């Protein structure tokens, strides 16, 4: 491919904006200027599906009603560990309205030894499914299945699971990595003993660095502490589930998923079908937060029941099942030791962590300790501890959220020991230019200068301020394609398998294509979330925006050039002389020569122009050897809290969240993402907690009452700062923000609580009980 040179905006407006020349392939569109000079991109454009959502017209998976559809329900284990000795479905089969029952048996790859049913390893493990004419019939039938267990001893507590005589969760090494887990960290299930697996000592950023001993020897000041985080379930409004119609010619799947193409591949693989005969659709999605990448056990179950009954099968799980079995953010116990010189220079970081993702792996604490700050000597050891509890899954910035809770408190403690302002210390040790801007703009808006020394507030209700930072890699999925069609009435359609999980992907695709074609966002029809169309990325790792908007722009650009070529021939000029603006195609040299976009295709030989484009390499290439895009998706968040020192009641009063994501595409949607991330962070810091009974292995608060999430009064004033940052890396230069939004909040709150009461709390959730304990008010 021939290349040309282009000048791109580069840097941060208002700080260091400049230009950069890049050599780019000839089929890449010309450089966009900064957002100020664009019409659709970067603006507060309303979601194109807002109306459908607020009026209830939007159809989610659970709303699907196909003709002849049956409803399915799982039978789940109510013991944490044991084997099934018998299952009797004869009574359930007789229930009028029951059409099919399927019992899960061991997979071929599990090796058919002993018992034919998989061993039960947690309360809520799926055992069988029933399809019936109504959900209540299915539930009744499930209750009539007789099941006998041979119960075995179990362990659900992380620390107890590490004891030498703890009941074993897996006797054999496990290679299996549940979907997601801690992104980018290799969890080797073959190492370790007992319930311990690991340690993981490296990530895609490499392994240990330097010499720890030397580093600590050079330190003037040391901080060493243990930080604990809880198991946190995902709680999407829409639970996991599918509606599957397995017809002779294809398996049609409606799925509440973050990855339509992935679910198609998984089901095709599982049932040995050609991918061309599995179609997965996700038009609207009610939240996933990382737990909805796979077909789970509900996908195969619904498919098998559909095949058995020759009817479409609806299988959405309920709230309790969601809590028990469909993912959680693993817990962690992390020990951090950080050494620094008097001036703040870090000399060594040592991290050791244990976490449990239940019966799955992926309980690492990410890469914050490894890369957030400059430090020559670094070592981490991250262990997975298996327990008899539901499997963990990726959860909005997996690993990094837990990791940040330790690192960013340790840095706060270090600043105090060094008698430095926490922001000043970070100015010294953080090399990121964009976080520097975020710190200064954030501090100004937040009023950081009003912060008082820790514990110095008077009165019963004490106010405190805290800050924390985060980083998140810029992952790019190169296998991301999208199709843009221009029809001969001038209407434009964007098609892809990429799904909009509520983040606003549909809208940004419309904006990018509209900008390129000189149209309005509302002129573009977006049909995505359907594997009938070109494969797009899964919505995980915050990859979507950077992976799919460049090919969307490129496809629109190529389609436009094809259109220009046809018009140019008619106008006896060259395509390069034409431009598309404000709904017209105009001759640049003679602006009176123009034609409405809508009419441009009339009378053409073929009634449509269709172009599919795929993600090209970043301009200037990727960071080697990691393969990540240059730059980072970091943030700086500030929190202000009030703590009642008599009752332990904590309230978050205010959060200022300063973020960057390259070229911002849609301010309203970005703010909405950050609001959501902050709210989940507050929830993680103060409320959510899986409570397990150690005597029975049951999850006691698997509901939405006693598993506490924030409601309106818990949500503070949230102010979002989006720092524009141009890197000249792709045709849109835009990135996602979903995960970064969730990383720093909980630890910013913990730091603010410390600032309020002068005592540090090393464990979340921070509750009235933990505040009273920290203040030494509890006596026995």
């Amino acid at each position, binding site marked *: 491919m021939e290349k040309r040179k282009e000048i791109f905006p580069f840097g941060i407006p208002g700080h260091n904006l400049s230009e950069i020349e890049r050599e780019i392939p000839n089929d890449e569109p010309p450089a966009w200027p900064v957002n100020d000079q664009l019409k659709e991109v970067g603006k507060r454009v309303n979601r194109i599906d807002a109306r459908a959502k607020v009026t209830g017209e939007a159809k989610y998976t659970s709303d699907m009603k196909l003709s002849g559809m049956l409803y399915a329900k799982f039978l789940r284990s109510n013991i944490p560990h044991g084997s099934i000795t018998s299952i009797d479905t004869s009574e359930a089969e007789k229930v009028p309205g029951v059409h099919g029952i399927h019992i899960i048996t061991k997979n071929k790859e599990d090796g058919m030894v002993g018992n034919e049913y998989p061993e039960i390893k947690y309360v809520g493990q799926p055992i069988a499914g029933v399809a019936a004419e109504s959900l209540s019939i299915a539930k009744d039938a499930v209750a009539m299945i007789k099941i006998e267990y041979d119960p075995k001893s179990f362990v659900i507590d992380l620390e107890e699971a590490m004891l030498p005589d703890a009941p074993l969760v897996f006797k054999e090494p496990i290679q299996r990595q549940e979907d997601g887990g801690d992104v980018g960290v290799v969890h080797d299930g073959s190492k370790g003993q007992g319930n311990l697996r690991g340690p993981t000592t490296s990530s895609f950023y490499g392994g240990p660095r330097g010499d720890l001993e030397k580093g600590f020897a050079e330190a003037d000041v040391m901080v060493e502490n243990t930080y604990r985080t809880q198991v946190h379930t995902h709680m999407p409004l829409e639970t996991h589930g599918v509606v599957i119609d397995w017809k002779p010619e294809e398996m049609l799947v409606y799925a509440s998923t973050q990855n339509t193409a992935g679910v198609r591949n998984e089901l095709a693989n599982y049932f040995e079908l050609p991918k061309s005969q599995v179609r997965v659709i996700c038009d609207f999605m009610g939240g996933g937060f990382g737990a909805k990448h796979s077909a789970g056990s509900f996908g195969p179950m619904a498919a098998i029941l559909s095949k058995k009954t020759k009817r479409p099968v609806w299988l959405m799980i309920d709230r309790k099942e969601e809590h028990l079995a469909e993912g959680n953010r693993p817990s962690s116990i992390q020990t951090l030791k950080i050494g620094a010189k008097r001036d703040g220079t870090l000399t060594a970081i040592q991290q050791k962590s244990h976490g449990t993702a239940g019966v799955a792996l992926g309980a690492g604490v990410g890469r914050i300790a490894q890369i957030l700050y400059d430090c020559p000597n670094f070592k981490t050891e991250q262990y997975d501890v298996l327990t008899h509890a539901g499997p963990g899954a990726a959860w909005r910035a997996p690993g990094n959220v837990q990791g940040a809770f330790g690192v960013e408190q340790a840095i706060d403690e270090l600043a105090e020991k060094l008698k430095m302002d926490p922001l000043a210390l970070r100015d010294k040790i953080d090399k990121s230019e964009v976080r520097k801007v975020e710190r200064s703009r954030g501090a100004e808006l937040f009023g950081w200068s009003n912060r008082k020394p820790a514990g110095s507030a008077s009165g019963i209700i004490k106010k405190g301020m805290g800050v924390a930072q985060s980083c998140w890699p810029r992952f790019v999925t190169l296998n991301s394609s999208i199709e843009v069609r221009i029809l001969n009435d001038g209407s434009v359609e964007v098609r892809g398998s990429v799904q909009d999980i509520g983040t606003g992907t549909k809208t940004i695709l419309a904006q990018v294509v509209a900008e390129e074609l000189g149209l309005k966002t509302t002129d573009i029809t977006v049909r995505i979330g359907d594997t009938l169309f070109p494969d797009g990325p899964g919505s995980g790792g915050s990859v979507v925006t950077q992976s799919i908007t460049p090919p969307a722009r490129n496809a629109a650009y190529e389609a436009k050039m094809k259109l220009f070529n046809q018009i140019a021939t008619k106008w006896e000029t060259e395509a390069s002389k034409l431009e598309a603006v404000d709904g017209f195609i105009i001759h640049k040299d003679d602006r009176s020569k123009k034609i409405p976009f809508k009419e441009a295709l009339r009378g053409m030989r073929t009634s449509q122009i269709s172009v599919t484009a795929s993600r090209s390499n970043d301009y200037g290439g990727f960071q080697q050897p990691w393969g990540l895009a240059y730059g980072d998706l970091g943030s700086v968040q500030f929190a202000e809290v009030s703590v009642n020192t*008599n009752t332990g009641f904590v309230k978050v009063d205010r959060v200022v969240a300063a973020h960057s994501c390259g070229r911002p595409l849609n301010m309203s949607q970005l703010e909405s993402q950050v609001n959501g991330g902050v709210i989940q962070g507050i929830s993680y810091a103060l409320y959510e907690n899986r409570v397990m009974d150690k005597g029975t292995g049951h999850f006691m*608060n698997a509901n939405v009452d006693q598993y506490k999430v924030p409601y309106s009064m*818990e949500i503070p004033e949230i102010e979002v700062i989006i720092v524009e940052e141009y890197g000249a890396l792709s045709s849109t230069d835009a990135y996602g923000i979903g995960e970064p939004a969730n990383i720093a909040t909980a630890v910013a709150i913990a730091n603010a609580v410390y600032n309020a009461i002068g005592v540090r709390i090393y464990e979340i959730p921070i509750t009235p009980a933990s505040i009273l304990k920290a203040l030494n008010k*509890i*006596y026995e």
Partner: protein
Amino acid sequence: MNKFSWYEAKSVEDAVKQVNNTVSEELYLPSGKAAIFKSGGIDVLDLVKEGLIQPKTIVNVRNIPGLNKISFDDNGLRIGANVTLAEIEGNEAVKTRYAALHEAVAHAATPQLRNMSTIAGNLAQRTRCWYFRSSDHPCFRKGGDKCFAKHSETGQNENHAILENDRCVSVYASSVATALLAYQGSVMITNGKMESRQVPLSEFFVAPDQDVSRENILEPNDLITEISVPAPDMNTKSYYSKQVQRASYDWSMADVAIVAQMNGDTCEKITITLGAAAPIPIRAYEAEKIVLNKKINEERATRAAKVAMENAKPLSKNSYKLPLFESIIKQGLLEIA
């Protein structure tokens, strides 16, 4: 979903004739033939959905004429059994004369739930102990042989009782009851023979050591028709505070109601009641004695609060409740002083 039939009671007489069991008895020893009362239906349907009761008939008392009035005169406040928490919250007399009750009602559940919750249903709802609410945990209250929450190593008992917790360590769900008990309210009950009796709230609640299968005295066929609360006099002061983890809505971790008659700064009569401290709402008699006929000052308030917790036996995860109760008892006493 288990199927049940629905009976729309037309009068008190009709209602008491139709039922044959209480929710508690059916739950403890299922008959499979139970006809039970339902007013707002919040708790009844929760228990049905949790698989803890399978009533044959639900007798809806929500629309019985005459049970939805609230009135106030020299004799006090009368609240019909079907008056909702939202209606109590909005009542002028309650707002101006029964500040602690108003506070308690306004902080119970959520606005949506308060629109549905009746006062009788609220008083007769079952505990929210998560072991009690789980059909997989056969505890004392369900005819089982243990209290899962009490276990010092395995029990998850952060929300549970710190007082009178020898057997079952659940706490009473109704926080409104804490305030009504402080006002020395009583419950008017009509039985199956259409006889009415008035029961003071102090005799309405049943502690586990008396009978673990129930939380109140209601017998099958007993219908609450009214709650009455004596008229406060001009010198009555009251206080209520409910402590929670989450402000929007949450079950009480500790709630305290105080109703006192003050003569200047001397306390001539006082009731201090504690919710979420014991399996039933209780009075802190010893604490009351510290301030009775005395001036309430910082020192006495502190001591009364300490004394209220003197017999507390915290479980493995709820010792935080002691300082919590102490701080709000003390604050309450100082506020009314």
